[in-house]
């Protein structure tokens, strides 16, 4: 069969070959023996395929709708998908998909049970044999005594903004040679929707596996949304703020429950004024939570990138040069911005915990 040169389109005229054409041009059967249909039949075919797929995938789609932000779209999706998922469960046609999800390491609805993006720093092959979480059996503070043979163990967690910071911070810490930094981040997550992704469960797993000595957290950009009900709890009302602060406190206590120290980094200013106002609420609640949990250091990212009470700027001046620190979406942080924030966090690690970082 000859290859079509680049630039030639791949579809034929849409007319199927006659039997005579097929027999006299065997290669035409290969390329041009495809059946064609009228647009009405193609439409029916497309709708049928989507409808069958909708039923087969209904349990996953229902779960996705349930964990989506509260609103009209979610309500409509649930109204459509609940009966479909019920029907699919009754006739057990979703077992195929559920089995595949379990084989892929997800729960039956397809939600990841582990972290999606997780990188490990320089390997700490085994913990010291005498190590008991939360108990130091030597007189030398392990953080102050961090060395290439006994690196400090630092866990970095967060949402997409946490990844913006975490990537730069992990890279900078790895360069020192005395820190084993592990980054565990996932976009679109936070503390408001544990039904979508449970950070407390994830942190529990990380603490048990890594026994970090310091945890650095940056998250909250996805948290200004309603708690789903029924009844739904709208963002910003007293019931919402009370519950959110409690979740922050619980998370901070969990992070420090095995003796680790905790640095909580606030969120920077947002370009959109409405979003910025919502983030300011989240920052305030996180700050209040940090003051009520012992051992938590609260760092203001606005010191480096501009805070929610300052006018938004995508640029800062560093060493006499302009540095573009924010991405065009007005939310995230550029790699250069991540580097600046990482150096700020490292300076705090040095000053508060005595880690001998260069």
């Amino acid at each position, binding site marked *: *069969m000859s290859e079509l040169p680049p630039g030639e389109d791949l579809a034929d005229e849409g*007319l199927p070959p006659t039997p005579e054409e097929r027999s006299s041009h065997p290669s035409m059967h290969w390329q041009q023996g495809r059946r064609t249909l009228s647009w009405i039949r193609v439409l029916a075919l497309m709708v*049928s395929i989507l409808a069958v797929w909708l039923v087969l995938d209904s349990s996953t789609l229902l779960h996705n709708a349930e964990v989506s932000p509260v609103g009209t779209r979610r309500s409509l999706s649930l109204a459509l998908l609940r009966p479909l998922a019920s029907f699919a469960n009754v006739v057990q046609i979703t077992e195929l998909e559920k089995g595949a999800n379990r084989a892929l390491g997800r729960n039956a609805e397809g939600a990841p049970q582990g972290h999606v993006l997780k990188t490990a720093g320089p390997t700490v092959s085994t913990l010291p044999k005498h190590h008991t979480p939360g108990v130091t059996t030597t007189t030398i503070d392990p953080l102050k005594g961090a060395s290439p043979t006994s690196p400090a163990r630092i866990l970095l967690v967060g949402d997409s903004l946490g990844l913006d910071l975490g990537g730069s911070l992990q890279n900078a810490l790895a360069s020192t040679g005395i820190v084993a930094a592990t980054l565990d981040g996932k976009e679109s997550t936070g503390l408001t929707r544990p039904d979508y992704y449970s950070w407390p469960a994830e942190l529990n797993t990380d603490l048990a596996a890594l026994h970090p000595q310091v945890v650095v957290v940056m998250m909250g950009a996805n948290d200004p949304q309603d708690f789903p009900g029924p009844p739904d709890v709208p963002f910003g009302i007293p019931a919402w703020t009370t519950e959110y602060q409690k979740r922050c406190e619980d998370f901070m206590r969990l992070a420090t429950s095995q003796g680790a120290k905790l640095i909580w980094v606030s969120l920077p200013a947002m370009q959109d004024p409405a979003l910025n106002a919502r983030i300011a609420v989240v920052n305030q609640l996180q700050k209040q939570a940090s003051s009520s949990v012992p051992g938590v250091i609260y760092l203001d990212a606005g010191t480096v990138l501009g805070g929610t009470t300052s006018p938004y700027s995508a640029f800062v001046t560093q060493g006499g040069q302009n540095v573009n620190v924010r991405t065009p979406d007005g939310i995230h942080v550029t790699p250069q911005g991540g580097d600046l924030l990482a150096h700020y966090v490292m300076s705090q690690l040095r000053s508060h915990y005595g880690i001998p970082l260069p």
Partner: protein
Amino acid sequence: MLFPTIDFAIFFVLAFALAWALSPFPAPWKLSLLGLSYFFYGWWDPKFVLLIVAETALAHVGARLMHRSEDPKHRKAILIGTIAVLLGILGYFKYAGFLTVNIDNLARSLGLGNLLPLIQPTLPVAISFFTFMAISYVIDIYHRQLEPATPLDLAVYLAFFPHLVAGPIVRGGELLPQIRTRRDARHIDYSRAGQLILRGMFKKVVVSSYLASHIVDPVFTSPKSHSALDALFAAWGYAVQIYCDFSGYTDIAIGLALLLGIRFPVNFDQPYRAVNLQDFWRRWHITLSRWLRDYLYIPLGGNRGSESFVARNILITMILGGLWHGANWTFLIWGGLHGVGQVVGHIRRTRRAAAGIIEPEPTRWRHILSVFWTFQFVCLAWIFFRATSVHNAFAVVSQIFTGWSVTSTLISPLMILTIASVIALQQLPARLGDRLVVEISNTRLWIQVGVGALLLLAITTLGPTGVAPFIYYRF
């Protein structure tokens, strides 16, 4: 809205029905396509619809003025003016932030203080694509290769939603005649379209997402935390990721257009079986490389001249082609690497030809080595394309050569199989699956429904939760 989402599926089913129902009536059909395309584009940000309308109007006015004029100087002036404004719009949105920061920093270094206000315009989705299409349209009008289109036809040509976001960059001569001609509503090549769409979704949703999250993003985020082997696999993995991402998108775009009765040109032709860089650029993003060849390289003089003259033309074309992808020094280096590689190849070929050396038919091993080394060079260049900064790129490159003391934490058998399979499949005939498509298309429709639904289920099950944007939609 992104292609592989439920939102888009609903939109397309409605668009398909509306477009075909109106297809016997040319003007309503075109208006419906235009309305649907503007709706699709406005989904990201409604105000940017004004941008594409403005560029359409500009291209239309420029084309009409040129067409009416017989004075060559006048026509050339109109052409240059039209292109300058189109490039000015693109330049503002895409490069203003980059330029102002760098110029201002240079001025500060020289003690001149703040020279320019720092700005960061929001980059409209697809601006590079429809601007290049508008430019090709006015240039083709100037060369009298095209008759000016009506405003409606031109608007549909530039905004047609299957190609709008990330190409292919379709020529006026390819799409405008199809817009003017009535399509056959009785014979839609749906099985070929379905093959393209499902194949594209598999490449993007399953393969590209998997490699991004499991090897490429972790290594590029923190190169020093990973081993040399991880860094090497990240480079290879990114080559496969970007191929699957971009060619997957293109497959879907071609398939969607085919369902609407429109044919797009091929945009990828197994690029990782290229035997040299010149061959690579005949296979990768074909519509961009032919645009650069016809509207930049050839007007610069092409290969008609001395070695240094041709080298200059190649370098300018490739560097500007690199910068088209984004305002970052990394894209300039990426384009420059390909430019240097092509210059070396060109000089070698021309000198050997001048010396009367006839290239022998390559042996099997010579062919394999050519493909292997071309792929390695392309992967090296891709490191700069993917990196967030020059520093980040060099960190990855240096880790490949110095990180052998760190153990690998990311590579798995599935990852190796994935990367190897995609590269290996490119060494096989391109239309390998076509016979299966023919057989399926000739089965009963209810069987085809079942096959289609199961394939869709497999893709959505194997893919990650959530959909990452296509890489090229940022450009």
